[in-house]
């Protein structure tokens, strides 16, 4: 017990400031995403509260681990009010990874249906965005984009890094609050 308390007290804060996390991925200076985020942090229902349900539609598992990494102390997405919830019924956002396999197409549809409006879908990774290695096979559609479910924002990469995913999520927050997209590729709004 004492060793646990000691370890807790002696572990320095690992969480990195957003500026530092984004310094490698932002292309403009100052970073428009952060500027907007800071201006609006207290406005709109989705700032500081974005609940995600992850839907794996046939990924290779690397995209999953980058999503999981968002919860480690270094990225700590929870400090921004971003969290993963257990059910689509509690979610604002669905995060889709993978190229939509035949065996999961229905699961994606049902999960989308079960999510209360207003809702948005973020597709992350090359597979979900239609630029995956294999494309269409007998077993998968090859993209979430033509699944009949409106994708609001896509984040490319194989897999995209945790800061890139985080930017996609902040961007969704902004759009849901009525703002304009500043990162990732935004398609039609819901």
């Amino acid at each position: 017990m004492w060793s646990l308390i000691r370890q807790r007290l002696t572990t320095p804060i690992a969480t990195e400031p957003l500026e530092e996390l984004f310094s490698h991925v932002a292309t403009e200076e100052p970073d428009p995403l952060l500027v907007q985020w800071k201006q609006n942090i207290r406005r709109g229902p989705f700032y500081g509260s974005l609940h995600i349900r992850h839907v794996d539609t046939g990924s290779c598992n690397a995209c999953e681990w980058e999503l999981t990494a968002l919860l480690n102390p270094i990225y700590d997405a929870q400090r921004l009010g971003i969290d993963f919830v257990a059910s689509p019924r509690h979610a604002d956002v669905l995060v889709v990874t993978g190229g939509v396999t035949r065996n999961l197409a229905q699961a994606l549809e049902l999960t989308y249906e079960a999510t209360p409006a207003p809702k948005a879908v973020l597709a992350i990774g090359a597979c979900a965005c239609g630029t995956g290695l294999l494309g269409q096979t007998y077993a998968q559609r090859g993209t979430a984009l033509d699944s009949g479910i409106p994708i609001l924002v896509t984040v490319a990469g194989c897999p995209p890094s945790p800061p890139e995913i985080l930017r996609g999520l902040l961007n969704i927050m902004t759009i849901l609050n009525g703002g304009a997209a500043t990162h990732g590729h935004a398609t039609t709004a819901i």
Partner: protein
Amino acid sequence: MTLMTCGPQAISTLCQSYASQGFRLQTMMATDERRIHGHYVLRYAFVHDATGHSVVLETAVPHDSPHYTAVTPALPAANWYEREALDLLGLFPDGHPEPFPLMLHGDLAANANPYPLRKEVDRAVSLPSVSRSLSVEAVPDGEFEVPVGPIHAGVIEPGHFRFHVRGEDVQSLDVTLFYTHRGLEKGAEGLTFAEGLAVAEQTCGVCSASHGAAFAQAVEAICDAHIPERAMWIRLLVLELERLYNHIGDVGNICAGIGFSFGVMQAGILKEKLQRHNARLTGHRFLRNMMAIGGVARDVPSDLAAHTGHVVQETMSAFSGLVNVLLSNEIVCDRFRQTGILALDVVRQYGVVGPAARASGYLADARLTQPSGAYSDKEVQTLLHVPTFPDGDVMARVLQRIEESSVSATLIGLAVAKLRSLPKADGDSSLVTPMVTPAPYEWALGVTESPRGENVHFVMTGPNGTIDRLRIRSASYANWPAVAKAVPGNIIADFPLINKSFELCYACCDR
């Protein structure tokens, strides 16, 4: 390797005779070779873990009546392989106890005709879409059926679990997998070896390097090519780094199974640091794009190798601090001990591999039995003290990973020293052995030990240096059937813990 051939009715007896001598079924490859010699071929690969002897038993299945005697009744480990060959190629295992679809879900009339892996079938052939409704069968009085998945509560991959519980006690567990079946193997057909390597790496996110290496080894074996010495050590370095970040991350994730967030967070920091270093070393957080057919894609310069040594040392000392806290915590130990026991005879029966097998007292490690590249080096073999634990519970699987991490750290230290002493690479091309285009329809197996256990890649060449058939057997494919055996007798609330203690992947199992 010994190769033996027999008729489709005799294959079961032949497999049984090897199994009874202590050989473990490593994989089974079903191939459509009608245009080469007019029939289908099944190849059952066995390995003897104590001696490293391997044998491949081959049988031809006639094209007009694609039937053979199922091996499964004698050897349960063959179950999925034979169902898979039925789903994808339409080869009927006569006498199979469960001749149901495995990989292709939904109602496919008379199994999956068109069989997607048959050569005349287009890679993107359209199969009827899958629609299911939740059906629950009648259960005995006092029992409940608890369906879970395929979309889970956490950030994990899809699978469907059916628990039969009496109160909190799990009576039995049915697992339905293959939701993420992507058709990778069909997709790889006709690609060049370099393209196939990328497919192999995408089989699994967290075992990318070991899948890549297994594929490359298979191709190199076909071409009889030996990779440059420096490339061998770089491969070993990358493979052990893969094991290290996985094992340390897994110890943390197992803590999530009991809601012990201290462990999750502390190990999360260590894993993130290792993955950042991976990116620095190889350009990819999951160590992709480093393997090449005939060697490695780029060099690890001396200073970066030395830096790797530091990062690993620092991580290991922080990890041992964390381990002390974990193992001195009574609640943690209480939850880990006696939970999810995997019996040694189940390990033998199902051909379980990797840390899961070793934590049940069965020593199987491809680095020892079928070493390749730098793993066959004498010094490596003397340092490779792969531990085993007899208990087979969650605690044993945790301790297994903790001990194996130290072995990996030692091997990394050795690889770093070698890379610093060997002459520098003269451009990246000096790290690849040039190879001639192999003749068509040659095949070989590539075996590596991934963090989850043995990966086996079967590659058969096509014309002009292309892939005719790729069969990927990941460690998870071998181990999933055993998970269902470790759960009954535990309370349902312990399932996440037990599942995480195996830490199997769905993507590489489903492909």
